[in-house]
């Protein structure tokens, strides 16, 4: 199988995966940026998302928990916000996408999780000249390539 | 002062004074409103102020279903006593004769027993409204001395008029004199209390509708 080198191909390959595959793959994407969140709820939810055999109840419970984490970490309207602190919000959002139930998510959950993960990385590097997003993109291609080749 | 002297006074000079105060007072009230003016709106209009204003003047008479379900007493009681007052004031033959004497205009009235029924409904409704105003927590918070005073000067003419019609409680001349006096009290307080809403609400509704209509909203 050819290596993925652009987002068009990246998204097409993700679209072909079933829901469980998308969820576990999304968990791998999020794993790479997990250190950017210091909310235990997110870490626990990512573990559940990564579990191929997770039950519906476990998935639901994890989704509730990580949604609360996202709400707690969102940038409040008119508040003085620091980008470096905001990365955790996107990690939580990525996990929400990964855990969204079949039929409830609009679009491709793994793609959404990937985009939010990149956003989390971008937050950290927003004040520097490095584009953290590009690095994350490369890492995600590598993760997907490994997954498809295994 | 005898009953008849009182009656002549309330029908004559007192009525003239009350009328002048009512008219002058309303002119003052309208001047107080319009002299404040309103800044021109420099934003690009989406709709018409005039159409919006006029629309709301009429539309606001009705209540949307959701709001009606939340405030049924206020709406029903409000309609009842306003209709009652309209029938009593404008469709009772003795009153029509008063208007004819003052303006030359006349129109057909309703049979007195029907007006009498409306008067009873109005009296009962006004009493219910008073109790509601006293007991409802929102109205209790909002209500001031003026709200109760206005209730009293609205209720008293209806009650005294009913008593005069049925010749209950005192000599006819005295009953009618008291009734007319109570109306004159209502007239002099009219422009300086919330009673003025009878005239100003058309302006308020128009402004509401105009502001919304400018933005293309029916309010």
């Amino acid at each position, binding site marked *: 199988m050819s290596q993925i080198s652009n*987002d*068009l191909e990246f*998204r097409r390959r993700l679209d072909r995966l079933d829901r469980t595959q998308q969820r576990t793959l999304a968990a791998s994407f999020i794993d790479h940026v997990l250190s950017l969140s210091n909310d235990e709820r997110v870490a626990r939810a990512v573990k559940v998302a990564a579990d191929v055999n997770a039950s519906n109840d476990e998935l639901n419970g994890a989704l509730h928990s990580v949604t609360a984490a*996202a*709400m707690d970490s*969102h*940038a*409040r*309207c*008119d*508040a*003085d*916000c*620091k980008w470096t602190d905001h990365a955790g919000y996107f990690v939580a959002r990525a996990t929400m996408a990964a855990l*969204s139930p079949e039929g*409830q998510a*609009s*679009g*491709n959950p793994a793609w959404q999780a990937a985009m939010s993960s*990149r*956003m989390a990385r*971008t937050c950290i590097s*927003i004040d520097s000249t490095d*584009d953290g997003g590009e690095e994350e*993109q490369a890492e995600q291609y590598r993760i997907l390539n490994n997954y498809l080749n295994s | 002062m005898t009953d008849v002297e009182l009656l002549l006074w309330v029908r004559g000079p007192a009525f003239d004074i009350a009328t002048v105060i009512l008219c002058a*007072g309303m002119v*003052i009230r309208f001047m*107080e409103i*319009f*002299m404040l003016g*309103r*800044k021109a709106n*420099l*934003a*690009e209009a989406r709709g018409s102020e005039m159409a919006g204003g006029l629309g709301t003047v009429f539309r*606001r008479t009705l*209540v*949307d279903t959701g*709001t009606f379900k939340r*405030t049924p007493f206020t709406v029903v009681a*409000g309609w009842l006593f306003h209709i009652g007052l309209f029938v009593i004031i404008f469709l009772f033959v003795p009153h029509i004769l008063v208007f004819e004497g003052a303006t030359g205009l006349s129109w057909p009235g309703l049979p007195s027993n029907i007006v009498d029924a409306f008067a009873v409904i109005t009296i009962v409704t006004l009493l219910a409204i008073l109790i509601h105003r006293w007991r409802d927590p*929102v*109205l*209790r*918070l*909002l*209500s001031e001395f003026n709200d109760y005073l206005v209730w009293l000067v609205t209720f008293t003419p209806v009650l005294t008029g009913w008593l005069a019609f049925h010749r209950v409680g005192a000599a006819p001349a005295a009953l009618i004199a008291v009734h007319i006096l109570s109306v004159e009290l209502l007239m002099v307080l009219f422009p300086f209390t*919330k009673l003025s809403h009878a005239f*100003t*609400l058309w*302006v*308020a509704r128009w*402004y*509401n509708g105009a502001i*919304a209509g400018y*933005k*293309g*909203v*029916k*309010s």
Partner: protein
Amino acid sequence: MNGPSFERGYNTLKEQIDAPVAAFFSSCVHCGMCAEACLFYTETGDPKYTPIHKLEPLRKVWKQEYTFWGKLGKALGISKALSDEDLSDWETLVYDSCTLCGRCSMVCPVGNDLAYMIRKLREGMAISGHAPPGLIGATKRAVTIGSPMGVKFPALQAQIRHAEAETGLTLPVDKAEADYMLLLSSMEVMNFPEFIGAVAKIFAQAELNWTISSEAFEATNSGIQIGVSDIAAELVQRIVDAAENLGVKNVISPECGHAYMAIRWEGPNLIGRPYNFKVIHILELLEQLHKEGRLKLKDKDVRRLTYHDPCQIGRRGGVLEQPRNLLNAVAANFVEMPDTAGMNWCCGAGGGVSANERADELRIRAFKRKKAQLDAVQPDALVSACANCRIQLEEGLEEYHTDIPVVSLTETIVEHLDGLGSKEGHPS
């Protein structure tokens, strides 16, 4: 600049009173119906949240300055004048329990526009120093940094780069003579940055000639929320200057409700002149593009969808039909809430309320009104615009353990784009 003072506040209130205000106060009969239109009252049962009660300080000034008996009473010293203590006591009523949603203005039988008056009362409250600290800070940041949340252009550039990578499109910045200049709200940039990529895709398909300005991209106007017209005017002026310098024909207001009110309706009155460009809300533009056949949409969402009308866009802004037309184009099963469109209920978070930590508990409680609407409709998903509404909706639903996803109308449109700019994200 002079500091806050009661005298300045009092004088501001005097200046704010105009003919409509006088007509409104002259007509109020204390019927209490406005209480039942206000979600802060309906969900707490506390009479102090009655809208006309919130306006008591303004009414006092009107009475004593502009009515016959009021002036007489003041001159004779027999009526109680408005005090600084009154303003202090009223601060939470005016800022914590009012989103300027305007539902009260739709219900008052004598036609009072209470939200119009609350907006004016805030001018006096703010200048006398009685506004929530969170809003004061936001306004300062808006003036000095350009964004109430501290979002500077380099941060937006990073989000733009992200959107470009995601979509494969180039987003134009500072393009002179563009037809459209897009504004963004900090809430979108920080919480829903996918909005940027979404509009880029839509504009690409519609072949829209558009740009973002590096000088003025912030749509949020915290001057309006707090009620300081000078600051609100300054924030609008920045946008006007950038738009006129670039020579754009139209300025696009993003989903944010209060931003639309600020730039579309209050803006020209704040700066004292009409604009040399038109202002259009993103939903208006999308609907227009769809009507013109420039937006190709495919497939329909089969879920049971309902729509929450952001108050400043809908009831107060006039954009009521357009979101419905758009939703009907992409939804097979769109159902209205009970009490909808112009009578829809506020989410509870606008008008500076979500920026005010002191109001958190009240805000979440007020959300129960919206939850009641959703309980009646039982949708599979809730569609809305306005980033602030969306956060409040999500937060509220999570708080009350209700499993309904909240989706953006703009992003829903993007999901159904056909061909260029669709999921593939690259020009074909």
